């Protein structure tokens, strides 16, 4: 059993890392095409990518949209979860279902729906409209994670805070949020990841001020090039660094 398990593990890791490895290796290709044979190693594609203004602008846009839309989604989701966990409201099962519903709908459909709405109401497409779409997809996630994290322990503390004269806003800010911090951080981080990497909504709901995935898509449409590999490798490097840092700090502590 054991050798078999280890062999399976090894094969699985090869499968999982194969495309990434190829991506990174050929980002150093000293030629125009990222296909074998490897003609030599060069950093020129990285130079090209890092000096590409459009790409860097798109990167900024992505970061902006990811952070703002996630913060909004988390705020809305957290408040809604707090309301449902705290107050017995009529129709709470229906409301919970409604808030979760976007999770079962393909991003493409959400994007098309918003496009239909925006074009019928004459809203001009921009980074903000894409941001609205990202809040829609991340709100259910933030709501579900917040709701699942709420328990007796923190509700008892909220009750005590209220008893001691805290207003609802103070309860949320001084007690609920800090006590649920690990879950909220996880929700925020996941949201940022999803928004950062989201393509179809950003593609259909932006015009000129595009996000990184859309910019990468148009790079891809402008041809197979090691520059695309370089962008991909850089994104990978940055994300992995972030994941490792978070893993070593926030989430490890959160589990203790």
């Amino acid at each position, binding site marked *: 059993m054991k050798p078999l398990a280890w062999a399976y593990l090894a094969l699985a890791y090869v499968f999982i890392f194969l495309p990434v490895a190829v991506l990174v290796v050929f980002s150093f290709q000293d030629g125009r095409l990222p296909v074998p044979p490897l003609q030599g190693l060069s950093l020129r594609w990285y130079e090209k990518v890092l000096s590409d203004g459009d790409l860097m602008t798109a990167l900024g846009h992505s970061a902006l949209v990811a952070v703002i839309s996630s913060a909004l989604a988390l705020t809305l989701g957290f408040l809604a979860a707090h309301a449902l966990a705290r107050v017995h409201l009529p129709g709470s099962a229906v409301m919970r279902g409604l808030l979760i519903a976007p999770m079962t709908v393909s991003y493409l459909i959400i994007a098309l729906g918003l496009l239909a709405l925006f074009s019928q109401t004459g809203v001009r497409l921009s980074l903000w409209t894409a941001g609205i779409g990202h809040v829609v997809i991340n709100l259910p996630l933030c709501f579900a994670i917040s709701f699942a994290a709420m328990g007796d322990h923190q509700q008892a503390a909220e009750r005590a805070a209220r008893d001691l004269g*805290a207003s609802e806003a103070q309860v949320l800010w001084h007690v609920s949020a800090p006590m649920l911090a690990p879950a909220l951080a996880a929700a925020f981080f996941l949201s940022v990841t999803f928004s950062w990497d989201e393509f179809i909504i950003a593609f259909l709901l932006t015009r000129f001020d595009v996000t990184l995935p859309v910019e990468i898509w148009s790079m891809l449409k402008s041809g197979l090039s090691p520059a695309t590999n370089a962008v991909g490798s850089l994104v990978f490097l940055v994300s992995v660094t972030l994941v490792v840092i978070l893993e070593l700090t926030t989430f490890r502590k959160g589990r203790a």
Partner: protein
Amino acid sequence: MTADVTILHVSQHYAATTALDDVSLTVAAGEFVVLLGPSGCGKTTLLNLIGGFAEPSAGQILIGGRDMAGVAPAARPTTTVFQDYALFPHMTLAENVAFGLRMRGMGRDERRARAQEMLALVGLPGGDDRRPHELSGGQRQRVALARALAVWPDVLLLDEPLGALDLKLRRAMQDELKAIQRRVGTTFIHVTHDQEEAMAIADRIVVMNQGRIADLGPPRDVYLQPKTLFSAEFMGEINKIPVHAGHSPLGASVPGTGMLCIRPEAIGPTGSLPLGPARLLDAAFFGTHVRARYAPLARPDWVLTVHLPQTARPEPDSVAELYAQSYVLLET
């Protein structure tokens, strides 16, 4: 810093169940009242109504003469020490204690001083930079108490605050609780199901059963002169002898009809009320007393529990004449 509490005809219904049924009670300012009863008797419900965590279906609650209808917990002159303490795990002890003051907008230095003062009051001077998870159960309980008292409540509500402590610690805390109440003079309303705890700390005990007040009075009265059979049984072990028109199967004669209730320690070789001869079934040494069980010769199927002095060494199967020193006849 203290206020009286008046509860007028308060009822509380949840769907099909009645948690409180027309309860009226007056608590004097500065009094230490214990609500005592088994789980589900309505004592915690009553506490929650006073604290404002729920509103009564009917009736009125006044604190310091002010009607509390529609007043949120935060706006009431009450604070609560919760059963699980509900300390804020992400704050230090001092921050926990100062929380209510912070919510009231008090300055940092001022509330820090007050927190120190309160921690000293509950016997936790220094060490205020620790967090709740670093404390023992008894220490957490003290912090919860300090936190609730820090905001100068008129009425402190305690929801089984000692329930989570082991017996020894509980007895020690009872004494301290009583002492602290004396010092601050705040009205304490304390919920417990432990009758010994109630007797140890209460100025007055309110015995509750099935949403109603079964008995109330100073511990001595409630113990020795219970007004209901429920109260008599809940306050401690009791021997019950049915009496019909002044006659009982043991020949004892008390005027009236009902249940003659006698505490085990009120039975002995001497007393005002003869219970007739009884045979010793068994006896066990309990430290403070010897607990003996007798079967009256008149009714050998009955058992009378008797607390004999520590020094007594009754012979097995011996027969003794038993007398009751104090007793109460309750209607059934």
